């Protein structure tokens, strides 16, 4: 099968200017990323905010030059042939309210279709059909400035699909959408890939469920590096021999989660304090290790309010790879 996206040691370093007297700092946004996305795949890039997902998409869509390395999209080298790549791709970024507010929804979309050389009649029919799919059928002639952020986001999603790209990049497409709208968008994304053989979709998300539910394969990315890349099932399979417990407990009273990490059989612990209680997630090498955990809690005068054993998720895969949950990574800014 042909590769829709291929990157070879792709890196991107940003030079951040400091104050007048300070030297510019370097921020490594991507480091030696090797990635292969097959034609026809729905591929997910999963990672916390600041992991490098958007930087990678910007490079792959010709918006940003890499500092080093090479990339190919739809068979064309981005360094030498960006003009050949552009007609074959499209991109939608979530969580932003872009669009020409003075134009109606139809005009915004129609104009883009024209830039891609789609005949007016075909464009108008596609616009109508796609707007119906995302529930915007009755907003065809509404000025886009009159749309809510969520509806404008839907309009932008339609813009991405409208041009029928060979490779579509969706950067956090459900960011800012309500639960129902997110579900509709996810369903549409999956059906588009299923119904259009050979079309490739690269999706970035920091929602585990989204990656798990939608993607054929997922690359987990953190600090600009791809840590793992496989199908969601295979990524989780490695953890299935482990026992994963989620505990809601009374506040840790100064005892950090580190006290548990030293226990035999405990592979990873994450901790989140919330509303007068603490939530601990344990990845244990075997279930028997739970006894030592409970004993330690008793010694520390920590009360267990709730205990659940559960199946591994992609979040657990991320924790097992980085030692931290995505929320912890985002909070610490690592």
């Amino acid at each position, binding site marked *: 099968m042909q590769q829709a996206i291929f990157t070879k040691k792709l890196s991107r370093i940003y030079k951040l200017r400091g104050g007048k007297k300070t030297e510019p700092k370097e921020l490594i946004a991507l480091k030696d990323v090797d990635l292969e996305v097959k034609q026809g795949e729905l591929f997910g890039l999963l990672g916390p905010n600041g992991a490098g997902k958007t930087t990678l998409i910007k490079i792959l869509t010709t918006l940003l030059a*890499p500092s*080093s390395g090479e990339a190919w999209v739809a068979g064309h080298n981005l*360094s030498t042939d960006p003009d050949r790549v552009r007609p074959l791709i499209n991109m939608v*970024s979530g969580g932003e309210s872009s669009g020409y507010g*003075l*134009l109606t929804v139809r*005009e915004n979309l129609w104009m883009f279709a024209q830039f891609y050389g789609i005949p007016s009649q075909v464009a108008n029919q596609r616009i109508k059909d796609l707007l119906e799919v995302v529930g915007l059928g009755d907003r065809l002639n509404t000025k886009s400035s009159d749309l809510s952020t969520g509806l404008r986001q839907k309009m932008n999603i339609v813009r991405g699909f409208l041009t029928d790209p060979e490779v579509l990049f969706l950067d956090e497409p459900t960011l800012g959408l309500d639960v129902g709208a997110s579900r509709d968008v996810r369903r549409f994304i999956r059906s588009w890939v299923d119904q259009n053989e050979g079309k490739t979709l690269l999706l970035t998300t920091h929602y585990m469920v989204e990656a798990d539910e939608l993607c054929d394969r997922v690359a987990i990315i953190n600090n600009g590096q791809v840590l793992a890349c496989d199908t969601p099932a295979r990524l989780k399979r490695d953890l299935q021999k482990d026992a994963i417990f989620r505990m809601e407990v009374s506040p840790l009273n100064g005892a950090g989660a580190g006290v548990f990490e030293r226990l035999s059989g405990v592979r990873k612990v994450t901790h989140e304090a919330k509303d007068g209680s603490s939530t601990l997630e344990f990845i244990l090498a075997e279930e028997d290790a739970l006894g030592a955990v409970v004993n330690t809690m008793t010694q520390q005068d920590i009360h267990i309010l709730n205990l659940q054993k559960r199946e591994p998720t992609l979040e657990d895969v991320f924790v097992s790879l980085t030692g931290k949950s995505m929320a912890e990574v985002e909070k610490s800014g690592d």
Partner: protein
Amino acid sequence: MTTKTSAYKHSLIPQNPGWLPRTFRFAAWLGWQIESNWADPFVFAIYSVIKPISSAAILVVMYSVITKGAFENPVFPYIYLGNAFYIYVGAIMAGISWAVIEDREHYRMLKYMYIAPLHYPTYLLGRGVARFLTGSISVFITIAFGVLFLNVPLNIYAADWGLFFVSLGLGVLMLGFMGLLLGSITMVIVNHVWFLGEAVAGALFLFSGAIFPLEVLPAWLRPVGYAMPLTYWLELMRRALIGDVARAFPTLAGFSNMELIGILLATTAVIGLAAFLTYRYCDYRARELGYIDRVTNY
């Protein structure tokens, strides 16, 4: 060992020639929608009349105070027409560079335009069409006001309309190239870029002979004016409309109309080449710096 990436090779001439007319046409359409839709048509009409007349009135009052009302002096039509046609400079040149700022900061669509299969320099030139049209309304109203109420000696039967339209066409092309040059530079500036277009248009006002002959400038500054195509264009536009009166000043009196057209053509070609080369460099730099979609919220 990583491979150091060379500059993106970005073709100035698109690989699919069909992109050019398509890009120009729909960029012009978009520009017109933006220019004409921001206000109610009645408000837009009022604005279109009041703005140019107010601008001209400031100049007329200043002239009147300084010369004690010497409207019969050939200096007046020289200044008045220079000022009227200079409206195109702000409209087209600054307008094209403004399109980059608008798309990037306000509509946040620059990145989507940029990755679309369009020829971006042509897109920017297309966005200038609407500015040319709205600018033309202002120029027409300003000149009509001058002829009707201030005795600007324009005789529509005596005007050289052939020269006028040739000069206008060349001038619009030249201003489009200057706009592309400025727009390209705008791509690699993200902070405090809002005033760039107006600042450059304002600075060129001094050196183009728009409101005073170049002889008024210190000798060491005059070459700036002589090097600028704007100077020759404004002279041609004046000559086309008011003929000999425009030749009353020594600046370019030694040049025939054909010579001026030749100089305008040559300087326009130079500006055009410089604009495309600058675009090529700035496009590469903007991608290297990550500025194509940089929003400052300034």
